[in-house]
């Protein structure tokens, strides 16, 4: 049984422009000990997907099974048990810590809420975790604004680890950080994964970070997964034109400059094009793409693509 299994998940919002299909029919599996990378551009719904998995946003349809239990039907009270096991790390280390609480208070609250340990035990747990993420012990009596971005992200990681979760949803955990700090945080996440046997759902817009960090990668476009494969396969043999374009768009010192791989803008998620959502920007689009929605199908074991012409690519 996979740790997390998401089936045909849809999260739609009502917005002023009409129905916003942030997540529009997604299947996703995270196995134990696995890091699944979710890559996409802004507005593709990857953050909403992450929040829906945690039930921070209620899904419109679909199932989210955590260790076999459908958590979409749980009420807030029953969710508490699950909340211990799924945690989240946020993008913005400046917004994700309450500015009016000390680090000690921030870290103690989850233990109090879940009634773990007495005062002394809690203090010990906090001291341990603070040391583990590489912060000095006196940090607990300080306020978030006394820390730098990288340190705050460490605090965020400590908070996520406190309750011994099994799955952590990382929502762009390093994209707000400077390059020299990124490496520190990525290394810490890897270390923690090894130490606690964690699984990650790692959301990012940065392909190179995902390439380093993920075991399996899913590429998202306009609320849907367009390609899913294990890390090595995806990079060596991308089969969706969008995946290819994304890779080519990343400027890389190792290869000469090319023309921009894609023209046009992302369509609005509240006005999704007919047929294949990508057809408005796709260099290969035909009438079939405009009319028919491609099926998300396996082209090799563990490699799925939603494109009519995936066989012609490469």
């Amino acid at each position, binding site marked *: 049984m996979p740790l997390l299994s998401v089936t045909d998940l849809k999260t739609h919002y009502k917005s002023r422009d009409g129905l916003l299909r942030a997540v529009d029919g997604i299947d996703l599996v995270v196995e134990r000990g696995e890091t699944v990378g979710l890559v996409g551009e802004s507005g593709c719904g990857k953050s909403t997907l992450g929040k829906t998995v945690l039930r921070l946003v209620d899904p419109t349809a679909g199932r989210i099974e955590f260790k076999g239990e459908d958590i979409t039907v749980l009420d807030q009270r029953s969710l508490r048990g699950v909340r211990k096991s799924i945690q989240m790390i946020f993008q913005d280390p400046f917004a994700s810590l309450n500015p009016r609480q000390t680090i000690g208070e921030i870290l103690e609250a989850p233990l109090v809420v879940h009634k773990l340990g007495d005062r002394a035990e809690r203090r010990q747990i906090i001291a341990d975790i603070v040391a583990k993420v590489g912060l000095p012990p006196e940090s607990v009596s300080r306020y978030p604004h006394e820390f730098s971005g990288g340190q705050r992200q460490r605090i965020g990681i400590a908070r996520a680890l406190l309750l011994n979760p099994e799955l952590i949803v990382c929502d762009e955990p390093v994209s707000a950080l400077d390059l*020299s700090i*990124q490496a520190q945080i990525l290394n810490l996440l890897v270390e923690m994964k090894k130490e606690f046997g964690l699984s990650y759902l790692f959301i990012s817009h940065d*392909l190179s970070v995902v390439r*380093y960090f993920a075991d399996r990668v899913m590429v998202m476009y306009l609320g849907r997964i367009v390609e899913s494969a294990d890390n090595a396969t995806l990079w060596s043999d991308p089969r969706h034109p969008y995946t290819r374009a994304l890779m080519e768009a990343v400027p890389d*010192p190792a290869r000469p400059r090319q023309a921009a791989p894609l023209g046009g803008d992302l369509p609005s998620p509240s006005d999704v094009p007919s047929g294949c959502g990508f057809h408005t920007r796709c260099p290969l689009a035909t009438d079939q793409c405009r009319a028919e929605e491609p099926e998300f199908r396996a082209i090799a074991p563990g490699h799925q693509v939603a494109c009519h012409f995936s066989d012609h690519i490469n």
Partner: protein
Amino acid sequence: MAALLQVDNLTIRFPRAEPVRNLSFEINQGETLAIVGESGSGKSLTALALMQLLPRAAQIPNGRIAFGEQDLTKLNARGMRQLRGRDIAMIFQEPMTSLNPVMTIGRQIAEVLKVHEKLSSKAARERAIELLKLVRIPAPEKRVDDYPHQLSGGMRQRVMIAIAVACKPKLLIADEPTTALDVTIQAQVLDLLDTLRRELQMAVVLITHDLGVVAQWADKVVVMYAGRKVEQALPDDLFNDPLHPYTRGLLAASPRLKHDFHYRDGALTEIPGSIVSAVGETGCPFRPRCNQARASCGHHVPQLIVPAADRLVACPFTTSSKAVPHAAALSH
């Protein structure tokens, strides 16, 4: 040929700090100079200093910004206004907030033409449509009457570029022009900038934190750390043989530059600590984070030395070599 812009020993001082110190660089006509650095390196302040748009609290106690015959630091407000938007133009990081939300984009483009070329409203509007076409905005005749909120981020940045190039400036300063944009849009915008640079024979100062962008779009690179220039090189030299320990560390820490390197293969190389540790440092600002620091590094700020042609580095202990372990991962 004299450089188009020559910055000598530029220092920017705030009441309690000096975020840019003794910075020198020059840029020739038609050239792209990249200034790369992390946040806090002073690169954005440098850009604002070139425009003389620093916040009121900031001073330039010494240094010279020579643009042609003029020293911008000595120019009066009126003289500077005549340069801004006409000879030196700037685009900013935030296309979302850099345009006036209650004015049509056409009028915002026309405004700069009216100020500098004294065009009539009608003529300025015609030119605005042409400029929208130039920056490849589809249906410019219709778009000219749009408000910024009706455009996507990429489009807005194109409008910003249209405003910047409206008077065919000699120098364009682009402060993190694509940081707020998606990667596929980033490629479009950088392409556009480069095409315009060639067509209009502009010099471009490209300020960025993205090493990939630097490698592909710059003719010359200045690496800044904590307000100082630590290295200057041609992009190929910089990426193949970085000299300053900071540059080396950055390249080694970047997952983008390490192909096929996966977390199962080992940890990324870290630069310990952060730029904050440079505050109050007497010697080399990078010393607290440097893995090659020696006692003498704390005594005084290292001078820029010339290790090879077209190169400058502010570290006396560096040697050009492929033997440095960091660099090994890069050459493949």
